[in-house]
């Protein structure tokens, strides 16, 4: 009788057999309570963080539980749309069209007024060599705000916008 083809004939004392090791489907439950308020804020172009009454730490995106105090933070605070790069790295990928290796910057953003960071993007084709810790950045909102995570498209570097900001400020006065 021919041996089934999965047998490794060169082995004398062990054999392998095919098997599967997976857990069918899984459902992940999460709380809407915090996220719903944050997304409602996005729809109005607002950045909402949540402050813990125990330790005054502000988290953005809002956390469900403060690990320090073991309480559920419940004080909502509006944060400015500016922040800074807490740290960053480059993530290489192959460009589908040119076949070249492109390095996309990946950054951790600390929203001004928040004690936490979250991971986000810089504008497309922004060189990761130009990223540095402490680099000031600003939320780039989507054209139409829908109350979704994607309302914040990416963060714009703002260091070279001094002129523009000055002009805006002067115009207001």
């Amino acid at each position, binding site marked *: 009788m021919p041996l089934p083809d999965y047998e490794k004939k060169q082995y004398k004392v062990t054999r392998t057999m095919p098997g599967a090791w997976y857990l069918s489907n*899984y459902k992940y*439950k999460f*709380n809407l309570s915090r996220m719903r308020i944050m997304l409602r804020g996005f729809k109005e172009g607002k950045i909402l963080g949540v402050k813990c009454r125990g330790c005054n730490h502000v988290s953005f995106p809002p956390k469900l539980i*403060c*690990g*320090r*105090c073991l309480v559920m933070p419940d004080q909502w605070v509006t944060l400015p749309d500016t922040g800074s790069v807490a740290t960053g790295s480059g993530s290489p990928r192959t460009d589908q069209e040119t076949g070249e290796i492109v390095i996309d910057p990946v950054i951790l953003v600390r929203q001004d007024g928040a004690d936490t960071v979250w991971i986000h993007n810089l504008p497309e084709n922004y060189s990761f060599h130009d990223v540095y810790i402490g680099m000031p950045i600003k939320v780039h909102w989507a054209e139409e705000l829908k109350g979704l995570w994607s309302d914040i498209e990416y963060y714009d570097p703002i260091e070279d916008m001094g002129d523009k900001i000055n002009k805006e400020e002067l115009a207001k006065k």
Partner: protein
Amino acid sequence: MERIGIVGYHQVRPELDLQMSPYECIFTAVRGALDHAGLKRKDITTVISATNDYYDGKTISNCFKVSAGGAYMKDESKVEMDGAHAAQYAMFRILSQNHKLAMVYGFSMPSCMPFECTRILELDPTFDRPISLMNSYSTCGMQMRAYMKKYGVSEEQIAEATATNWKNAAKNPLALQEAQKADMTAAEVLKSDYLASPLRELMYPLLGDGCTALILAPEKQALKITDNPVWITGVGNCQETYYFGERDLTTSLSMEKASEAAYKMAGVKPSDIDVAELFGYTACEDIILAESAGLAEKGKGDSLVAKGCLNPSGGATSGMTPCATGLNRIIEAVKQLKGEAEEHQVSGVKKAIASGQIGFCAQNNIIYVLEGGN
């Protein structure tokens, strides 16, 4: 052994589809246990959890639960077994004198995962799994048939004990609502469909999402925290072989050894035990475990259920939360000792046992001897 005190606990009432996220559920139990003991998070020095990567749908399941479990910046570890095993791990931490107060919790959300699939993955992958006939139901069925045949126990007797479990669950305010069947009868149990003959649908527990937390303290601290702690005076743990062919399913060797060790440590005899909260998947397994723990003569364990001293809370039948069921048994025994079990209180409980398990047909058992009083 120095006595270890149980000074606080909280059980989130299990639900078939709990409207909480995992973190909120754990937070509720852990926060509740601290509040129950009148303690603060900073008082806890070590946190031991019982969770399972497969039940949580992520590897290193404990790393996500740090904040909710009160473990932020603390000594922390996980047991991928029953919550009752986590409690033993926490005890070791305290007895090593490196830690004072230990938080223990067990958690899972069966509404998110195919629990029976995870059980199939427990099976030997080369021989048992490909046959695809072995699973949680068929092993319970085989165990039940073997037990009934050996001791001449009838299906009716098992059904009667099962019905009592459902009725007991109705008196337990922390039982799964769907498990509270005050009017259950043996006849109705016997009318339900076979899952794996002789095991019927109503003989197998319902699974519920939940979390249970427990705070352990060394003797001196325990007496400072509460006037009436419940003491862990003995613990025993034993692992039997996996292979069914080597096991006598009509009894539980691992429970026999584990209980012997626990009784010896506590200096008690089986006849001293007033109430037992044992974790068996089925009423039949409850009975087998109780007999192996020396509470009844072999083949006569169902009398314990009838007397009301075996699983007055309904046992796992009151709602099974994988990873938390053993802790629930401990809490139920603690309540019995404190006289706080309300409707399902057994009178005059001085000494109790509680057990947890893992593996098919309770391959591994862990048992605690618990005593009240100062």
